[in-house]
């Protein structure tokens, strides 16, 4: 079944809302599953093409590792470093088409970033037309 295109304006609004709602979020991106940028809000902090490609690689590697370890399906990938945190997750309801990547500063609260990323992903999911439309 061909996936219908989401409402792009709603997707961008969801990214805007995430950046506004969550202190410390520096960049938010929607990437296509094969590593191409779809929409982003980063204020020039990241190079979108590379960010999208890295997000899709991380998600695919995370899924492969869980599969190999019989550890279920992937919910999200979290990478923490001394100067920042990165959360990458599939957008539910997008038939595996879209990936959400959120880059936050090191002092951002992890629970908040994860929760807001999930909320954003659901908002993006709602931007896809229901089946049959």
């Amino acid at each position, binding site marked *: 079944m061909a996936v219908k295109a989401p409402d792009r304006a709603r997707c961008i609004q969801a990214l805007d809302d995430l950046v506004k709602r969550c202190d410390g979020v520096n960049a938010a991106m929607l990437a*296509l*599953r*094969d*590593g*191409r940028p779809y929409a982003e809000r980063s204020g020039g902090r990241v190079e979108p*093409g*590379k960010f*999208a*490609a*890295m997000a*899709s*690689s*991380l998600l*695919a*590697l995370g*899924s*492969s590792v869980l599969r*190999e370890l019989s550890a279920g399906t992937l919910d999200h990938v979290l990478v923490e470093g001394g100067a920042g945190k990165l959360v990458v997750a599939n957008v539910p309801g997008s038939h*595996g*088409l879209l990936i959400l990547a959120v880059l936050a500063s090191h002092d951002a609260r992890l629970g908040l970033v994860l929760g807001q990323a999930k909320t954003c992903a659901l908002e993006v999911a709602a931007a896809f037309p229901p089946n049959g439309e």
Partner: protein
Amino acid sequence: MKQSYKMVFVGEPGAGKTTCIAALSDIKPVTTDVGCTDELAMIKETTTVALDYGELDLGDQGRLLLYGLPGQSRFRFMFDVVRAGLLGVVILVDAASSHALDGLAETLETYADELRHLPCVLALNKHPDPPDTFKQQCQDLLRKHKLVTPILAVDARKRADVIRVFELLFVLLEYGSDGAPRQEAPAWL
């Protein structure tokens, strides 16, 4: 413990990297394929977005660790992920494709800086006997990037062909090292 050798395949999407590793690996290969969302979907359903991984037992010679990288240049950073301890690089070309030279040109544009410091082989896949003119055009592209690399025709699904490539890389490593710094493994390994 058996000696392990790490070999990486690069090349345009559709060159046969994933198929090669799936056909040769003695273990179930690790794959990171996803459905294509661009014009590539017209020629193949899926594409690798991180890496393929497989292992090939060489008996007394050791074990070959096979890595395949995505063909699109946007995944160039994956080379840095697999670089440590590389024996060499195989540039795989779909010699039967009408876009083979464009694909090779993009691969060389992406990886030439790395390839100048590592043993590498240009492997012409999917064609039993690539024409001399085609080989010459490949050679010209290599020269353009200041690369001196053996070119050979292979069936990348065949164990004997890939072992031949491995042995060639080994010879290149032994006699053709450019003295570039390499990351040494600790002595206890």
